[in-house]
């Protein structure tokens, strides 16, 4: 006996109901106050940032293939409206934290391509001095707390950030992103119970891109008819489902969740249905073994967040075809420049291996350091 249904997006496609979005779809959430209040500049910035994310990652992919980096490279391409849309409704006291698919969120919060590309290259000029790599972008001064490689591992960390805001009496919240595979980590459930029990101002965003590596969502977790987010009811937490291709909808529903956090100090779980065009990571070369070309094309042609937003902005006459080309061109150049920057930057010196391990060692003046804290008999450098 099987208990699995599938996410609406997927069902639609499986039933061969692949269709372009209608005008109604496009503007369904345009009337929401938070979207009505959006200036043309803000709308164009969202478009630009989504394009910048895509160009950045396309450039990174090329460099990876040229052997410029090591380890993993998880591309966000196809999911851009989630990072850009959610970040666009965050306030000065709102923080975010995500998993290892973290480039998009980094660009969205305003990290510059140079520090990001340099990090991928393992250069000393990278956002994490080349110590973290692709999975570990950090920009605390922009309230971006990473970049976390252990699936689900960030979910209680986000809770702690929100807890600290409440503890300090700051009117802010934490937005914590996780994947559809991460919902299967027990710590996420522990976090949900704590969030509700203690009225912690956090918004959990499940970026359901349909797969955890090669495993389709329904093979990894029982999908309730109302969606994964509806599991929040087990903890009396409010929840909602979001079409990830439509930035207006992402903004509207994320905005509502953030308001709930600010006004009621209550958590929310959102499930955003989205899709990644590339493999899980570069290593996942034959990702067409577990999904069809047609499925990928369906999302690229019908549900691409950048195309959808472009249609909207064209309709709204905020952009012309030429301006779009210009944005595209600029983003490409910016990405190219970041490649040059990364190429020319130095690697960290070996002595850097032993810095940033302990705050007390890095800040001798503010600590009494006694005893031995590193235990190699001799160092190779």
């Amino acid at each position: 006996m099987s208990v699995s249904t599938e996410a609406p997006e997927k069902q639609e496609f499986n039933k061969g109901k692949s269709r372009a979005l209608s005008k109604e779809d496009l503007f369904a959430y345009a009337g929401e106050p938070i979207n009505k209040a959006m200036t043309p500049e803000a709308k164009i910035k969202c478009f630009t940032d989504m394009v910048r994310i895509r160009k950045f990652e396309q450039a990174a992919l090329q460099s990876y293939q040229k052997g410029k980096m090591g380890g993993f490279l998880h591309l966000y391409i196809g999911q851009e409206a989630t990072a850009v849309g959610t970040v666009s409704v965050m306030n000065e006291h709102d923080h975010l934290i995500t998993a290892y698919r973290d480039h998009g969120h980094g660009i969205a919060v305003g990290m510059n391509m140079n520090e990001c590309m340099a990090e991928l290259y393992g250069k000393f000029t990278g956002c994490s001095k080349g110590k973290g790599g692709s999975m570990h972008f950090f920009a605390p001064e922009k309230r971006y707390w990473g970049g976390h490689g252990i699936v689900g591992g960030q979910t209680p960390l986000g809770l702690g950030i929100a807890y600290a805001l409440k503890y300090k009496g700051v009117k802010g919240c934490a937005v914590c992103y996780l994947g559809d595979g991460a919902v299967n980590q027990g710590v996420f459930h522990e976090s949900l119970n704590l969030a509700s029990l203690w009225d912690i101002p956090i918004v959990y965003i499940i970026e359901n891109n349909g797969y955890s590596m090669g495993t389709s969502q329904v093979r990894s977790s029982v999908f309730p008819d109302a969606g994964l987010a509806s599991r929040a009811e087990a903890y009396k937490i409010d929840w909602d489902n979001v079409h990830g291709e439509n930035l207006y909808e992402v903004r509207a529903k994320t905005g509502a969740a953030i308001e709930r956090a600010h006004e009621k100090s209550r958590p929310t779980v959102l499930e955003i249905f989205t899709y990644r065009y590339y493999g899980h990571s570069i290593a996942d070369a034959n990702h067409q073994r577990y999904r069809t070309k047609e499925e990928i094309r369906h999302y690229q042609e019908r549900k691409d967040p950048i195309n959808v937003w472009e249609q909207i902005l064209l309709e709204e006459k905020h952009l012309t075809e030429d301006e779009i080309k210009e944005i595209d061109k600029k983003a490409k150049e910016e990405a190219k420049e970041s490649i040059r920057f990364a190429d020319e930057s130095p690697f960290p010196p070996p002595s850097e291996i032993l810095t940033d391990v302990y705050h007390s060692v890095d800040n001798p003046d503010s600590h009494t350091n006694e005893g031995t804290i590193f235990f190699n008999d001799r160092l190779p450098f």
Partner: protein
Amino acid sequence: MAVITYRQALKDALAEEIERDENVFIMGEEVAEYNGAYKVTEGLWKRFGDKRLVDAPISEAGFIGLGIGASFLGLRPVIEMMFFSFVYVAWDQAVNNASSMRYMSGGLLNCPLVIRGPANAGTNVGATHSHTPENLIASFPGLKVVTPATPADAKGLLKSAIRDDDPVFFMESTLLYGNEGEVPDEDDFTIPLGRAEVKRSGSDITIVAHGGCVISALKAAAKLKKEQNVDAEVVDLRSIRPLDKATILKSVKKTNRVLLVEENKPFCGVDAQLSHIIQREAFDYLDAPVHRISAVDAPAIYSPPVEKVQVPNPGSIINEVREILQIKA
């Protein structure tokens, strides 16, 4: 100097730090309304209220992770493990996240977090509850480990641990909570991490121990003096990481013989590391190999009289010293 219990010393340290720094709060199972499973936090909830003492559900991974995240923003969570063995259900958060965050961010953040609680065997609570993972935890660069043996050390080190800007694992013993000892009255008494203490000086042999074994070592040393006129020097590590190599080596170079005692299982215990360091750095001073005593290498047995045999005690320490010094019984 006031004479108070190890438990009271911990409580005083917690209370003083809560008063000193508004960012310090205590979270754990039964720490608030119930006054703590082992009463270390007794009275603190009444005194400081819900914000500073937080009762948590049985979700160690959740609330340790929460503590790490909260520490990013400058809070100083002091998280109680009812038993340190329970950190295993939160292991990834406690050791992987806590030790890697600062590093992976290139130093952009740090985790001023304390995880404290009893880690000892010998109380007949069985295999799953009797772990003493100071070796496991100290093996992670990025983490610090402290194991006080006396009330004074408990107070001075806990205050330093809470003020430390790195994650500190503070490992106590239920068998020590009731022990009394003098604690300096000075109103801001602290002991820096990484400083061992010679708890008894002697010239014939060096006994190195930490936590509860320090007390057994001192008992053994007293008996050895009385019964065979052997003068053992007892070095209390107090802090495992950072480690006070200098004090250990100084003592070994003086006595030329060393016995390492720990309550933990032998394989890759802290004393394995000490043994390596000593033979590596004091090779020419050793008149005999470095000897070790640790728990008998099996899960903790329940049967009360048999568990007594399983863990090191003054008797087994004395026997080993006799063996090293080749003293016939």
